[in-house]
């Protein structure tokens, strides 16, 4: 049997395999544990957590679109206290690798969240969601501008201390994603997560109004994969040494391989888990077969391979 070293690294942390769940698409983990052992994941990325409990947006919160969907959850969540009390201990207890995603309305809120995470053991990284489109005011999407992105990352760095890797999650809805990536790389992130959803809208032609209560929503699923591949390719070309957690429309091993060849060091499964709760395991198994077929012995040799030529 051919063996494959399937492990990957983000900053100082090692993961047994590169298949993660995407933030907001696996809730806090327990829901999926009926379908497969969570320890088989490279890591679970938790739903973006804020300081206070948050109700989120009104319904309808979703609309199916061709090969994709819109969501406008609006960062519903229990707040950092309940999260650290209930969700984290359960995951740590199960020996699941955890990446905590955080979101704030202000730079200060990111700082507060980072300080709270500082003392928590059992966490492998923090993903800083500066790109959620489901906020009342798009001016609040920090990842739209280099200066606001940097402000958040610096607040996180100052407060989180230690060597917990910081991953900045970026939005594809910008004129130049490399410029934004550059700003946060210079601010010292250990990795990037690409891509968050695209801002979209569906109008119900019967009611003749936007279908979502929040009007706009985030577009995800296979429809956006070409945008994800492009963003990852561009950013990896500019910063070949910065690990990228790739995501956007991955539902098979082929799709994951595409993102990896473009430059991703790990791949998160988002919307695909809605259609198939076992999607992450399917992707993990198919990807390992494809890598072995192509003669890779170490997963990491495949990262960014499309840039290098055969």
């Amino acid at each position, binding site marked *: 049997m051919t063996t494959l070293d399937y492990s990957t690294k983000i900053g100082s942390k090692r993961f047994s395999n590169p298949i993660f769940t995407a933030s*907001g*698409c*696996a*809730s806090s983990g*327990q*829901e*999926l*544990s*009926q*379908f497969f052992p969570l320890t088989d994941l490279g890591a679970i990325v938790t*739903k973006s957590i804020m300081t206070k409990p948050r*109700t*989120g*947006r*009104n*319904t*309808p*919160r*979703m*609309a*199916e679109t*061709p*090969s*994709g*969907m819109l*969501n406008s*959850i609006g960062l*519903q969540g229990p707040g950092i206290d309940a999260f650290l009390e*209930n969700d984290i*201990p*359960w995951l740590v207890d199960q020996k699941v690798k955890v990446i905590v995603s955080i979101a704030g309305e202000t730079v200060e809120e990111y700082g507060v969240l980072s300080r709270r995470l500082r003392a928590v053991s059992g966490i492998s990284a923090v993903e800083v969601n500066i790109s959620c489109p489901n906020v009342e005011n798009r001016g609040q999407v920090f990842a739209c501008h280099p200066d606001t992105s940097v402000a958040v990352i610096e607040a996180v760095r100052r407060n989180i201390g230690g060597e917990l890797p910081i991953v900045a999650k970026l939005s594809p809805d910008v004129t130049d994603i490399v410029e934004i990536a550059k700003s946060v790389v210079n601010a010292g992130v250990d990795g990037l997560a690409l891509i968050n959803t695209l801002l979209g809208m569906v109008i119900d032609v019967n009611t003749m109004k936007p279908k979502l209560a929040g009007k706009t929503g985030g577009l995800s*699923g*296979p429809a956006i994969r070409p945008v994800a591949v492009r963003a990852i390719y561009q950013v990896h070309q500019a910063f070949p040494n910065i690990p990228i957690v790739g995501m956007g429309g991955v*539902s098979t091993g082929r799709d994951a391989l595409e993102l990896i060849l473009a430059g991703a060091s790990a791949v998160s499964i988002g*919307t*695909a*888990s*809605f*259609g*198939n*709760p*076992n999607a992450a395991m399917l992707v993990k198994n198919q990807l390992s077969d494809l890598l072995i077929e192509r003669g890779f012995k170490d997963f990491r040799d495949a990262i960014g391979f499309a840039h290098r030529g055969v």
Partner: protein
Amino acid sequence: MIPHRINKSAVQISAEVISNKKFGPYHHMVFAVGEMAANSRPGNFVAIAIGDSQSAHILRRAFAVYRAIDKGPMGGSIELVIAPHGQGSTWLCSRTVGEFVDLIGPLGTAFGVPSSNANAMLIGGGYGSAPLFALAELLKNRGCRVDMVLGASTAAKIFAPLEGKRSVSSLTLTTDDGSAGIHGQISEAIPRLIREYKTEVIYSCGPMGMLSAIAKIAEDFDIAHQCSVEESMACGIGVCMTCVVPIKYESGIKMVRTCIDGPVMDAAEIIWDKKTVTDLLHS
């Protein structure tokens, strides 16, 4: 820490279509599901993938279980009643016997059964009557009186199969157009029937507007009311947070997932008024 396992008996299987018959405007479909049937309780639903792997539809559709038969001649089976409405349900209704669909179930909460026998009223709108027949049987076996009220816009849209009526003490029909039973919206007839049958607990399933109207009546009469709600669901298993309904929580509001904390919920907890919800969300 959470005491019970979420989705605790849910499994994902490839289920063979073993029957597909038109029943008025609905399709009555039977699927071979093996052991899954034994775990299905009245109120549970299943989530079915639409189209093949090349389909532009990436999300499942939820369907309430009409009947689950544990040990039939084909092993366990689950029966659904489907209204061909949009693209997903129309695709499903055109599956023929022998084809397979990707199905996850049983999912969600089940109707709670009263500890002592009580007079129960089961109210169904359109295909919403489907899950009520198995519940009727269960309640009757527990010694409850079961009065069933089924409504729809027009006679053809009332789903009420002959064998389903066996377990009920009374059956009242209502139609918006008067083509069968009482003329009018189902909720208009309810107060009188509650008095007549001395109803102690209400179970309902149907469009949100109907559930909301019944909730109001149940509150007025101060009787328990379990309803099966229907919100747009992207995942059906609790991971996406799209399917929420607002419930009363401390001095405010909380959004709970109807796929794992529902579809069967205590109607008294739900905030039915849209305006109240909007106000609370922006306060």
